[in-house]
């Protein structure tokens, strides 16, 4: 770059005229290209959000309740789904969209309960997005008035940012993970309509401060509803079923 006038062989931001009276040769080829600034003021995720709105409309037209379940790996999402389908599947006509990076293991577990399930493998992706859900819904073709439970990729960070078009978001944490999860992942808890604290049957065996967990969750999301349950023993599960029934269109 010319130290005096700032012109260079690379692009210059503004077209400018100047006298080249300073002492050096301009043997380099410099085109003073003009650029212009265009204001976009556009949401980065606008495309996903538009697709999510389309999903939401599609679901509403069919009176289908879609719930997005998010948690870290191993919090018990699939076990909760299995029990929910076994006990409520016939009443609510539940079908499932399974998101995982790899394998069809979870969809196989769900199908073993008799519920229709579709597996979406995200490969390198760490979350489901609205386009993936649209594809899943198209393949699944859930009946009017039914319930679609979406099991997102096990991850407490990325899924929080991506609207799928669901009516509600549920975050599941288990007592074996530690009570600090809401403090470590406030974005996820902030995005939740409901928090489920799972595996409470293990509370006598682990160091888990329920009050501290509740305090963290409410700091991240004041007023968020928290239900405590065990998907294995069924303790507290009736409250979860009540929550689901109350949201049916």
């Amino acid at each position, binding site marked *: 770059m010319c130290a005096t006038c700032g012109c260079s062989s690379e*692009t210059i931001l503004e077209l400018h005229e100047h006298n080249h009276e300073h002492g050096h040769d301009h043997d380099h080829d410099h085109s003073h290209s003009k650029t212009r600034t265009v204001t*976009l003021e556009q949401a980065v995720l606008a495309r996903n959000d538009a697709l999510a709105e389309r999903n939401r409309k599609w679901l509403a037209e069919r009176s289908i309740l879609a719930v997005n379940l998010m948690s870290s790996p191993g919090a018990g999402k699939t076990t909760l789904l299995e029990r929910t389908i076994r006990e409520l599947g016939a009443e609510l006509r539940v079908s499932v969209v399974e998101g995982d990076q790899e394998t069809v293991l979870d969809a196989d577990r769900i199908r073993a309960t008799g519920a229709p399930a579709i597996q979406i493998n995200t490969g390198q992706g760490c979350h489901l997005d609205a386009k993936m859900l649209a594809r899943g819904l198209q393949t699944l073709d859930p009946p009017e008035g039914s319930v679609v439970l979406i099991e997102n990729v096990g991850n407490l960070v990325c899924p929080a940012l991506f609207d799928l078009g669901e009516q509600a978001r549920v975050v599941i944490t288990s007592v074996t993970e530690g009570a600090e999860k809401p403090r470590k992942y406030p974005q996820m808890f902030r995005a939740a309509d409901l928090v489920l604290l799972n595996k409470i049957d293990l509370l006598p065996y682990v160091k888990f401060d329920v009050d501290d967990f509740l305090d963290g969750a409410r700091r991240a999301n004041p007023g968020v509803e928290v239900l405590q349950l065990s998907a294995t023993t069924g303790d507290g599960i009736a409250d979860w079923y009540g929550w689901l029934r109350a949201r049916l269109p």
Partner: protein
Amino acid sequence: MHEMSITQSVVQAVCDRMGDAQIRRVCLEIGTLSGVVADSVRFCFDLITEGTTLEGASLEIIQPTGKARCRDCGAEFVLNDLLVLCECGSANRELLAGEELKIREVEVMA
């Protein structure tokens, strides 16, 4: 790492809006409470823009800090993370800034 998809969304959105125009600079707003790590977006940017109209463009990221208004006492305060309470002890707050995730402007070859 969702910053990869976020950066892909940026490139896609700019290409959709600007067509074939050669992009020289992209200016993003990524709030400090948005859940997106600006440094990770910078890391992904060169990789994702390769072979697109954004290749070689510079990336500017503005990071608005978090601000909130307490719904109980009305005070406005700075929020460095989502767990900060109002001085009155309330967690019931409305976020005013910090969650931005948008493309503010681009500079294109005229």
